[in-house]
């Protein structure tokens, strides 16, 4: 019964969404208040229905109901509880259900908390949201029904891919989806604005929290995936320019650009058409990401070969959503009036440069990801586009951007002078030079790019601090004055500063882990010692054990540095009982300067084990920097300017907000 209830709730949600997609839109056009008013209850009802549906699927997984195909294919009675739950979305059908759950959640959030939105805009936004939802419901009900029954029901399931039975990867998809779907809000606002023919500072402020939240989730989601690859794949790689990764990275690049351009709309009333276009592109790339990964147009078209309906539906859906919105853009965007004027050298100019580079980067990643497909389509032969291509294109784009990132926040709006900004940055240049010299002294035999990269990170970090110091008038006015300036700095400005600092730290981590890692692969017998980057790894042998649904071989390494014990590492090799697949669980010891990383492999006939030992420098910086960036995003999200229209709190009245500061 549960499966049928879930299925029925989904059908009802489709009906409600269809109504929500049409009535409020017509109402907003014709000025029928009562028609517009249907949007809010409809959005809330829709969410309720999808929640029921999602609850049903979860229940089916929890009870291991193997009369449902989806459960059979992705679960097993012996699977731990958390992965039974994660199994709900670790597959094509279930992940779509999660997608619409989040979509309807956000929609109802607008309905419930959007009292400060003008009724017309709200009606249109909810209507556009419902249109997207209709597409997803139809796709699920017609081609990817998670509630499909199977007869006769098998005794047990086929289990979830063991690589996916991992805490990092269990929450990775929901995070990504929160990001993707968050961008759908920016998209809906953009479409509503195009219909309305009006984009202003208020619009930019309504869109900004959604974009920011989506960006935070997407950043976190991508990093979780990267972190998972780092500890799970057994050799410390964290980014592969894999199509699956690129699919989530493209909306991130476009979304980052959107985040920056929307501040220009908010503060300077210009770049409107471009910002709207970015909102459309960001969500389009999110849709592409959702579908390309799950349906496998890139990874393997076999999914389509077995079910052509899916491919055709996805293409039709993308054409309607993306093509439709771009057509609307072509028609309506020229009528958006911008009033702000600015010089090329100005804060706006710097943000525009950021946009240009980010958009080019997104386009380059898109080109590289899709090129093999496009070339094949015209019969141009099969080629591969891998990391060497992406690095060759991406790094030259990022270098000038990071260099400019330190300068941009120092420029004033409208019109600025480059010279004073650059003179203020002499400390940053000095610091960058010193860091490069130090890096060169330490890793003279390493790649030159590593030295340059770490210098760039230093330049950005110190440059951002210099900008902050300038804003606080540090050492120019009494310290207490600086302190009160610090307190008055709006949270959005703090967000910018912290995010840029976080990025600098992340870049340092990427450079370190990319350029200077040490690796040692060998066969070790118990008692053997190997030295990696000054750490002595003594292998104490391995023993077999059992996990809930897998068997383990667990190795033990005692690690010493200069005779002093540092840590004991216990890497595992797991063999999952149902699928017979093998996974590695690396043992990682994180230090400030780098990770000790040990993996144990197979035993050879002589009794020695294949071991892989690594020292991955500065890896923790990479994750730490991202955490800072996400926190910065959250901090910016709490800025009171995003809560405009909310009843003014008496406490807020007394506070001063520097309108011009921050981005």
């Amino acid at each position, binding site marked *: 019964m549960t499966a049928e209830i879930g299925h029925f709730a989904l059908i009802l949600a489709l009906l409600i969404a269809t109504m929500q997609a049409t009535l409020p839109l017509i109402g907003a056009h014709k000025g029928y208040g009562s028609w517009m008013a249907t949007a809010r209850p409809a959005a809330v009802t829709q969410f309720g229905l999808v929640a029921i549906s999602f609850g049903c699927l979860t229940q089916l997984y929890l009870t291991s109901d193997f009369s449902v195909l989806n459960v059979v294919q992705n679960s097993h009675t012996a699977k731990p509880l958390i992965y039974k739950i994660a199994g709900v979305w670790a597959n094509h059908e279930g992940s779509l259900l999660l997608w619409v759950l989040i979509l309807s959640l956000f929609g109802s959030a607008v309905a419930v908390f959007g009292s400060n939105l003008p009724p017309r805009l709200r009606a249109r936004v909810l209507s556009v949201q419902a249109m997207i939802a209709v597409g997803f419901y139809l796709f699920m009900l017609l081609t990817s029904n998670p509630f499909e029954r199977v007869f006769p029901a098998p005794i047990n399931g086929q289990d979830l891919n063991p690589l996916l039975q991992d805490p990092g990867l269990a929450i990775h998809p929901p995070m990504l989806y929160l990001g993707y779907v968050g961008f759908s809000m920016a998209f809906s606002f953009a479409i509503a604005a195009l219909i309305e023919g009006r984009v202003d500072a208020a619009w930019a402020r309504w869109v900004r929290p959604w974009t920011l939240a989506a960006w935070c989730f997407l950043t976190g989601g991508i990093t979780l995936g990267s972190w998972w690859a780092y500890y799970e794949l057994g050799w410390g790689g964290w980014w592969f320019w894999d199509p699956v990764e690129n699919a989530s990275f493209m909306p991130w690049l476009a979304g980052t650009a959107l985040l920056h351009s929307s501040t220009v709309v908010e503060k300077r009333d210009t770049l409107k058409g471009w910002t709207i276009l970015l909102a459309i592109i960001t969500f389009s790339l999110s849709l592409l990401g959702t579908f390309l990964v799950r349906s496998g147009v890139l990874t393997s078209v076999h999914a389509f070969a077995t079910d052509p309906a899916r491919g055709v539906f996805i293409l039709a859906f993308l054409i309607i959503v993306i093509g439709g919105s771009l057509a609307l853009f072509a028609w309506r965007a020229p009528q958006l009036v911008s009033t702000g004027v600015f010089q090329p050298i100005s804060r706006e100019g710097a943000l525009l440069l950021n946009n240009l580079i980010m958009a080019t980067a997104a386009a380059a990643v898109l080109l590289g990801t899709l090129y093999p497909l496009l070339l094949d389509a015209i019969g141009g032969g099969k080629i591969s586009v891998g990391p060497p291509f992406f690095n060759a294109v991406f790094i030259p784009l990022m270098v000038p951007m990071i260099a400019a990132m330190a300068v941009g926040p120092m420029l004033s709006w409208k019109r600025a002078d480059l010279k004073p900004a650059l003179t203020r940055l002499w400390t940053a240049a000095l610091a960058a030079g010193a860091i490069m010299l130090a890096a060169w002294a330490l890793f003279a035999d390493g790649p030159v790019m590593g030295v340059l990269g770490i210098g760039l990170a230093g330049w950005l970090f110190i440059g951002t601090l210099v900008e902050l110091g300038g804003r606080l008038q540090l050492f120019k006015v009494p310290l207490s004055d600086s302190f009160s300036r610090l307190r008055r700095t709006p949270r959005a400005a703090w967000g910018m500063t912290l995010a840029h600092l976080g990025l600098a730290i992340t870049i340092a981590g990427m450079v370190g882990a990319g350029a200077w890692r040490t690796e040692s692969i060998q066969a070790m017998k118990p008692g053997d010692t190997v030295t990696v980057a000054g750490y002595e790894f003594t292998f104490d042998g391995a023993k077999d054990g059992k996990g809930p649904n897998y068997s383990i071989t667990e190795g033990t390494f005692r690690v010493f540095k200069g005779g002093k014990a540092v840590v004991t590492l216990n890497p595992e090799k797991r063999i999952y009982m149902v699928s017979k697949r093998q996974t590695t669980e690396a043992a990682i010891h994180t230090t400030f300067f780098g990770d000790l990383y040990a993996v144990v492999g197979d035993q050879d006939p002589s009794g020695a084990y294949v071991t892989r030992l690594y020292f991955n420098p500065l890896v923790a910086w990479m994750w730490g920097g991202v955490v800072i960036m996400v926190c910065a995003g959250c901090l910016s999200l709490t800025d009171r300017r995003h809560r405009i*229209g909310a009843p003014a709190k008496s406490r807020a009245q007394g506070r001063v907000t520097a309108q011009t500061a921050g981005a």
Partner: protein
Amino acid sequence: MRKALFALALVFAWPPPAWAVNPDEVLSDPVMENRAREISRGLRCLVCQNQSIDDSDADLAKDLRIIVRERLTAGDSDAQVVDFVVSRYGDYVLLKPPFKLATLVLWLGPAAIAGGGLIAVLMFFRRRRTGESAVQPAAVLTRPPPLSDEENRRIEELLKDDAP
């Protein structure tokens, strides 16, 4: 990421996987081994998804890694080793696609996009400087409607909210 590998495994068959770069493969000469690693990183594992033979635990990847080392030991140059593999498996094995007619758009695309974007930005500034007379008439026709009372009231509220 490696999901696709399993999907492929259902269609084509390979012996059970071994682990990427095993100690028995490693050459004793570190310079030679470094060259081998560098070459391996640029060669695609054919049965995997966008993975180099250096990262892959697939059997074919292992065979190719050994071949790369054999050719190097036999005195081949890096280019000769790569050619050896390309002659058997085609350009598809190169993770960095060669620059030729078919990849012209790929290699020049990013530069073209950046250039196009730059030109668009320059045009944007030029148009700004010469005044907006060209777009003005259309803009006047579609001016947004005047603010409603409700909106005016909210602006007041906002202004009040932001005041010191």
